[in-house]
């Protein structure tokens, strides 16, 4: 240990006596470490953002949206056919053994809303199972119950933004007006605190700005089958598959089921968060490979710079090598000394690269607004790679130094 410290001291003295040369030799490593750190941090940030977005949608869920009806579609549909998602679809899906739950949603209006001031909100009918299936959380009260539908209870659940906008009138137990009806507030959803809009884009909803009502009993259980099938009942169906089911396979089965029952018309679209996650992970893997190659090239160039300087060092210090051999240094001692110098150079370069990389990551987050994540990996990996580069590229010059014949080395000027 003491010997190692002495070696480090000798290496330090040697390097510090050629400050400018040492500094220039580590520039490649500094840039390499900085680049790898920035790339890992931004890559990790992007990955985490995608993960949280998709996890927020529920990885065992499938979102089925009604597709916009093309102009020429109206002529294709005839008789009992109806364009879009219906209660019949929900009933069909509920019968599938691999489905744990189904919730429907229908947007009714963006009507004036509130007792004292009018607020524009997205008002929707939803199934009572919606909360459980989508994993939303209530902050106060309760969600809509099946009996609210059976009994036609005039109750509602508010998104947190709507509740805040209503102020005192948006509290639990208060009544709000929707059209010419008064609805009692029985629950308020928790703030989703999502600053990005990706979840909303995929699920096509922002629950914070929504008002949830129970489907009227008549809409769910119409006696007249003809009437039922004629109405396009739903804007969205959310399906949760059972735990042991492959959600992607399930989505293919559901797609087939709906396609056939909709008379081979694709009047709906499906979003499978798990599939998006898989695609995102594949993209991430390609990106990671790109990072690894770019970082590897940067560190390789930095390492070659170190090797170049160390070879010049060995050539310049042949006489010193001869003296050290004369006073008792073994070949291994010479290898260790020059290796210590190259590792010390790369450690210095690595530390400098980490500081500058950290500053760059902060700047990227602040100025460009990119999601970043500084993890132990993003700090440790480039540093370890730099030290490895120091050892790898330092070995050849060190071995060259050790293999100098002492007599030849002593003859050098």
């Amino acid at each position, binding site marked *: 240990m003491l010997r190692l410290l002495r070696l480090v001291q000798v290496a330090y003295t040697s390097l510090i006596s050629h400050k400018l040369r040492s500094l220039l030799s580590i520039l490649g490593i500094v840039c390499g470490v900085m680049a790898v750190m920035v790339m890992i941090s931004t890559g990790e940030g992007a990955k985490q953002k995608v993960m949280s977005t998709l996890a927020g949608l529920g990885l065992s869920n499938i979102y089925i949206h009604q597709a916009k009806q093309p102009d020429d579609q109206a002529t294709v549909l005839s008789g009992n056919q109806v364009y879009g998602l219906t209660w019949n679809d929900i009933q069909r899906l509920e019968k599938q053994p691999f489905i744990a739950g189904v919730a429907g949603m229908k947007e009714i209006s963006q009507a004036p809303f509130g007792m004292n001031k009018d607020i524009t909100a997205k008002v929707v009918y939803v199934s009572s199972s919606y909360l459980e299936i989508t994993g939303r959380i209530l902050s106060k009260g309760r969600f809509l119950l099946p009996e609210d539908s059976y009994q036609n209870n005039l109750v509602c659940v508010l998104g947190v933004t709507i509740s805040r906008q209503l102020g005192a009138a948006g509290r639990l137990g208060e009544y709000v007006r929707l059209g010419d009806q008064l609805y009692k507030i029985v629950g308020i959803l928790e703030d989703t605190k999502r600053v990005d809009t990706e979840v909303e884009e995929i699920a096509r909803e922002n629950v914070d700005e929504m008002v949830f009502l129970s489907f009227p009993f008549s809409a769910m259980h119409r006696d007249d089958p003809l009437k039922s099938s004629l109405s396009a009942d739903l804007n969205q169906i959310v399906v949760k598959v059972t735990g042991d089911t492959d959600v992607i396979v399930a989505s293919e089965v559901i797609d087939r089921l709906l396609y056939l029952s909709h008379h081979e018309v694709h009047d709906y679209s499906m979003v499978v968060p798990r599939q998006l996650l898989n695609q995102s992970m594949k993209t991430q893997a390609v990106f990671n490979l790109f990072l690894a190659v770019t970082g590897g090239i940067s560190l390789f160039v930095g390492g070659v710079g170190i090797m170049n300087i160390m070879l010049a060092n060995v050539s310049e210090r042949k006489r010193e090598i001869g*003296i050290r051999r004369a006073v*008792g240094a073994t070949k291994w001692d010479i290898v260790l000394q020059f290796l210590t110098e190259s590792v010390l150079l790369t450690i210095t370069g690595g530390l400098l690269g980490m500081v500058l990389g950290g500053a760059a990551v902060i700047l990227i987050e602040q100025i460009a607004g990119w999601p970043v994540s500084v993890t132990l990996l993003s700090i440790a990996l480039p540093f370890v790679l730099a030290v490895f580069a120091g050892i790898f590229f330092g070995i050849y010059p060190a071995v060259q130094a050790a293999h100098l014949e002492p007599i030849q080395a002593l003859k050098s000027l």
Partner: protein
Amino acid sequence: MKEDMLVSLDKIQKSYTLGQKPVHVLSGVNLDVAKGDFISIMGTSGSGKTTLLHIVGTLLQPDNGTYQLDGREIGSLSDRERSWIRAHWIGYVFQTFDLITEQDVWHNVAMPYLYRGETKAEVGRQVDAAIDVVGLSERRHHRPAELSGGEMQRVAIARALSIAPKLILADEPTGNLDDDNSKEILNLLRRLNDGGATIILVTHDQHVAGMTNRILTMKNGRLAS
């Protein structure tokens, strides 16, 4: 084997290839140096005296012949073992001082200890004592660039001395010094010999050789008294 001899060379041969021609530098050198002896080897440039010194100093292996140092056969030793011999038994003094310019006097003198593995306390004592012997106690934290030629050679002697070697090898130790400094260095070597040190000195200067106990001359690859 002469048991009272520190250095015993028997029919040592060494040749180099110059171009395609072999050059026989040493053609069967015999040399015995007793413990406590102080000998000088003289000869013209290229006569092989430095080659002989490097063989004695284990930096060079002879082509033929046997070499025993303090009763130990050197020829069969590995590079690592010969390094050990140099770190523990042999102190080198070169014509050009050969100090590490980035390090101060103390660290230059302590250099052999880097390869011996002693603890810091032991090193400190030995190094301080060696610096005291050469009279440079006040300059221990100076760098070589801040010293005169004579002082630099004294540092080199202290470096050789610090390990309490069995043998000191000096290759033209006064070759780069003026008369006053030369005299000072020779007096220092003389004192060390008086204190029991065995010294082999290589020089082409008759006056320097005259300060030693015995003068040997290298001629045609052989030594003669």
